[in-house]
């Protein structure tokens, strides 16, 4: 819950942004409940607010959302979910749930487990809890605050005044931090940071982020 509440509060900024862009309350809530991915939701209402076309809104949103598909590939073998639970797990596959879960991964990031089996079981259960509590917690608070934000849109018209535009990347940095367990991983993160910034002026929204997958491919290629 330590992550879910502060992140959820940012939902108020989304509610306000959606309201300002001309979405009604039902449409705003539909995005937070059914689409449920912060960056994508902001991108979509951003395109709508700037008078963009239907296709532009959909494509921009999808480009920012592909990230969740990659996360799903990463987390699926660790969670081992089946049936209906898999549908719910998919829906709450977001930056926060993945980051909190991976902070409890039972190894130094090479995927083959570390320590004795008791430690490993404990860590797996923490990973499981981290994923579900964070994912469902953010789902709940994100929607609650979207609702509040949409109703009180006037107050939050400029999220920067309240430091929200700064707290959000800081939150993602805090989620990334525990994953940077050695210098190799720190260098990979730094390279991704620089590549996305270098590409930002030339590629449309979302692509500079996806492009860093190339760094993961390059760095992971050599079998160690």
């Amino acid at each position, binding site marked *: 819950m330590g992550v879910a509440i502060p992140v959820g509060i940012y939902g108020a900024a989304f509610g306000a942004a959606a309201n300002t862009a001309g979405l009604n309350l039902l449409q705003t809530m539909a995005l937070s409940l059914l689409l449920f991915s912060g960056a994508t939701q902001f991108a979509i209402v951003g395109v709508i607010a700037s008078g963009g076309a239907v296709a532009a809104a*959909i494509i921009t949103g999808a480009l920012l959302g592909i990230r969740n598909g990659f996360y799903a590939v990463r987390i699926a073998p660790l969670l081992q979910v089946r049936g209906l639970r898999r549908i719910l797990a998919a829906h709450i596959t977001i930056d926060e749930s993945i980051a909190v879960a991976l902070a409890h991964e039972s190894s130094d990031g090479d995927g083959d487990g570390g320590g004795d089996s008791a430690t490993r079981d404990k860590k797996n259960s923490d990973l499981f809890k981290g994923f579900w509590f964070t994912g469902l917690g953010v789902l709940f608070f994100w929607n609650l605050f979207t609702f509040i934000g949409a109703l009180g849109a006037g107050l939050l018209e400029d999220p920067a005044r309240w*430091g929200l535009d700064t707290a959000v990347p800081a939150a993602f940095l805090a989620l990334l931090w525990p994953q940077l367990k050695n210098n190799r991983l720190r260098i990979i993160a730094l390279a991704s940071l620089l590549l*996305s*910034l270098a590409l930002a002026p030339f590629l449309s929204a979302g692509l500079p982020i996806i492009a860093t997958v190339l760094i993961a491919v390059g760095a992971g290629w050599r079998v160690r």
Partner: protein
Amino acid sequence: MSSFDIWIVIAISSVIMFLMRITGYLIPQKLLQGVRLNQIITLIPIVLLAALVAIQTGTSGDEITVDHRLAGVAVGAVTLYFKGSFILVLSLSGLTGALLYNFL
């Protein structure tokens, strides 16, 4: 965009998002068991989160910008270095960002 158009965007985007997510869970894990592929997949959350931090801190639209957000996120990084809690990181960086934005 008309209200109907907005509903179209919401419906299609939600379906696309769900398909992208569920695909990750449905890919047979046998296909993903190679050492090389495993190493790559392990790195993906790290590169994506790092990029997300960079884009949300240092860009406005397609322009590189240096503003209150960079200062606030830097304060967040220092807080993380000294093992500050998640909520402390958010509070200090948000406060820094808000102060600079409102009073500079």
